[in-house]
């Protein structure tokens, strides 16, 4: 409690400091201006900035970018008379967030108003000073100045208010920087449009942007619904077989490790995540007693599992982002050298990633009838089949990612360890789930036997 009060006290002192600085700068700018800023522009951009600040767009990467920055940049470029003063007024208005006000975080409100004012003043002075520089350079430098002041002033405030390490806060903010540059460019464009064509041009430009924002919001809702639907699938699989559910989540985790290690984009990682989560969809159509039967299946049972697996391929084939997973669902794995189900041909990298993650988890998790392998043994196995059964880049990425994270899995580190009545052997390199129970697959074209199924 006292700690919280102390943190609040520090935030208040910071707010006071910022407010004094902002007032000093504001008065200095007003005294130097000597004339009144263009009233129409002042009203237009002040209204715009308040609306924009309160309609913050949350991008899919969960990095909030306030369009207010764009409007402040527009204002900097738009004012003909007393540009710095105009920019300061618009900048200060950018801090007027209804949400913050409602939450009674008045200190934060003051900090925001002050920091936006200071950043806008600095950026505007820079913009005026660079009048002879070509537009692109001028905008870039102005944007950087705005961003630098903005970040330098916000960072201590966030650190104080949320009690986080500066490095962590900075890591959160960093991904948004390119967006700020793009917003800055568009903002300057709007500003020059205003000064050459008038306010009506800004309205015409921004109406489609507002509509696009609404559409984008629907898009985000849809993405959320999609995630929820995938959770339905996970719940269903969990109800049926807890091992498969946890296996699915681990495969997903390893797949993301590999994807991150290989430098996938945010969108591609999201896609990989969904594909990895749903790659076992076929298990839901397999009777429970077959799914959990220890030991090998009879020919008849095997035929039934195969038939279901085949139908599952058809299911996955309907979904574009799951198409790469069809091979895994058919009870086989996407072999790197083109063997196995689906024949030869280039597969998307995602298929190989999930195949490696799947085999790795199968080896390093304990089943009711056999123990997990040690992580090192699993690594050796992956490396031995790297280039034939597994994509070498994916194997290297997984090993690299796990080593870099210092994560330990496998024998002695299992998350679902089983208490055995009779110690089973530490042997049997098999795939999780179905693969364990399938009879030996007819000899593969390559010399080495497949690791999984």
């Amino acid at each position, binding site marked *: 409690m006292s700690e919280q009060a102390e943190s609040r006290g520090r935030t208040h002192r910071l707010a006071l400091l910022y407010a004094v600085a902002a007032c000093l700068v504001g008065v200095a700018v007003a005294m130097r201006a000597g004339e009144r800023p263009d009233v129409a522009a002042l009203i237009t951009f002040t209204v715009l900035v308040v609306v924009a600040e309160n309609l913050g767009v949350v991008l899919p990467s969960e990095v909030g970018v306030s369009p207010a920055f764009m409007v402040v940049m527009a204002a900097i470029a738009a004012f003909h008379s007393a540009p710095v003063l105009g920019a300061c007024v618009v900048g200060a208005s950018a801090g007027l967030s209804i949400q913050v006000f409602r939450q009674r975080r008045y200190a934060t409100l003051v900090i925001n108003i002050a920091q936006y004012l200071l950043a806008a003043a600095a950026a505007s002075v820079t913009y005026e000073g660079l009048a002879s520089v070509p537009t692109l350079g001028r905008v870039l430098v102005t944007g950087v100045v705005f961003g630098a002041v903005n970040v330098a002033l916000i960072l201590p405030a966030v650190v104080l208010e949320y009690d986080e390490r500066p490095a962590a806060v900075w890591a959160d903010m960093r991904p948004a920087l390119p967006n700020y540059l793009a917003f800055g460019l568009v903002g300057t464009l709007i500003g020059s449009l205003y000064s050459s064509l008038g306010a009506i041009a800004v309205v015409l430009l921004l*109406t489609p942007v507002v509509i696009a924002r609404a559409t984008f919001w629907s898009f985000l809702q849809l993405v959320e619904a999609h995630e929820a639907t995938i959770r339905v699938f996970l*719940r269903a699989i969990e109800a049926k077989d807890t091992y498969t559910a946890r296996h699915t989540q681990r495969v997903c985790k390893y797949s993301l490790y590999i994807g991150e290690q290989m430098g996938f984009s945010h969108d591609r990682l999201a896609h990989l995540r969904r594909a990895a989560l749903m790659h076992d969809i076929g298990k839901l159509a397999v009777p429970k007693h077959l799914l959990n039967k220890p030991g090998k299946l009879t020919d008849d049972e095997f035929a039934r599992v195969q038939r279901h697996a085949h*139908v599952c391929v058809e299911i996955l084939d309907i979904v574009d982002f799951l198409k790469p997973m069809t091979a895994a669902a058919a009870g086989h794995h996407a072999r790197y050298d083109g063997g196995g189900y689906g024949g030869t041909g280039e597969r998307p990298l995602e298929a190989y990633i999930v195949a490696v993650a799947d085999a790795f988890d199968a080896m390093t998790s304990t089943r009711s009838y056999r123990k997990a392998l040690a992580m090192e043994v699993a690594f050796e196995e992956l490396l031995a089949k790297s280039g034939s059964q597994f994509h070498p880049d994916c194997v290297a990425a997984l090993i690299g990612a796990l080593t870099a994270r210092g994560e330990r899995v496998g024998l002695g580190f299992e998350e679902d360890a089983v208490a055995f009545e009779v110690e089973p052997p530490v042997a049997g390199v098999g795939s999780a789930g179905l693969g364990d129970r399938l009879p030996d697959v007819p000899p593969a074209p390559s010399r080495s036997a497949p690791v999984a199924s």
Partner: protein
Amino acid sequence: MTSREVREMRLPARGAGGALVAVAAGALVLAGERHWAMLALAALVTGASLLLQVDLPWGGRVPLGHAVVIAVAVLAAPLECLGVVAGALVVVVPFRALEPGATVRSYAGEAASLALAVGAASGAHAVALLFTGAHSPLVVVGHAVLAGVAFLGVDLVLRGTVFAPTSERLRIREAWPLQLSLLCAAALLALAYDKSVTVAPIAAVPLLVTQFSFQRYSSARATYEQTTQALSLLPEVAGLTPLGHGERTALYAARLAEELGFDAAGVDRIATAARLHHIGHISLHEPEERRGPTDVREVGRVSAELLRETGFLADLADLVERVQVDASRDGPLDAALIRVCSTLDDLAEAGNVVDPFAAALHCHPEGVERSAAIALLQLHDRDPSLVDDARAASHALATLAAEHSSHDAGHVHGDACV
């Protein structure tokens, strides 16, 4: 040809269109004062921009070029404007020919509706000129808005009726945000061009932002639909419900909901609920172990529970639950219509009923269900291909169904009125 293949084919055309726009815009600036050269380049820009199409999430496509055409109608004299559009249509021909499914008829339809719409826009502009001759930014914007409303109105009427295949018909209720964006871009283009040719490309900004957001929404919607399709197949491949039942019910329900005046979001919600109305089977039953008729209320309750647990689909869960549980005759229409459609599918697939639509009405003789069944009957009278469409929708499974008919023979789906 699948929608994916169509999409892949369309990409090069888009790229080519974009490149053409860029080249033409550059040349337009260089051409300066020569009038004929300007007109030729305007035709090129217009043609290229007609190739840039936005897919509406609910079907139908709108070319971004409509904004350019409206601006041309305001900036050029009526005859010049028709000439520019004619030139643009020639530019479009080779790209349209590359598109799969393109026919002479569809191209003629496009050309005719474009010509008529441009005529309307030019006419509206000419009338506006009679009243306001002065040249101020506001007047230019006013003219552009008038011409744009005339153009988009005529286009909407034509493409909503005669000139488009059913699947691509535009409806004002869903198309207006896009149309409004185009109108703004057209006015901005006219305004900017009026000021200076070099400012004109600014109009590309709203167009590109619009294209980006609509395209993302459309593709996300397609992915979501595919995921729900895959989920709806789970109880079916497990042999607990007839193969393709969810997908066919969804198609019937979507058509019926459209017919009954639900908006696009409502139709989507009903189609998704119809796809997932039997999902509860997967946690209620073991595959291949179903014996005798199921308690449909239990299926409804479990289905809804599954959806509710996800936290986000609670609204959908309520609807799914009502489909099976709340079978009161004055219950809500959305649940009733899914119920009627599910019955229809059971009857149509059982194959021992001559007229499944009449039989479905017989199954639901009272209240809102009766009205839904009657509407479905009328829909079928007007569009007898309904059942074939539904079977085609679950085509990938139809082949499998045949393959596994021996396996499924043991599962007779007795509860026809579900």
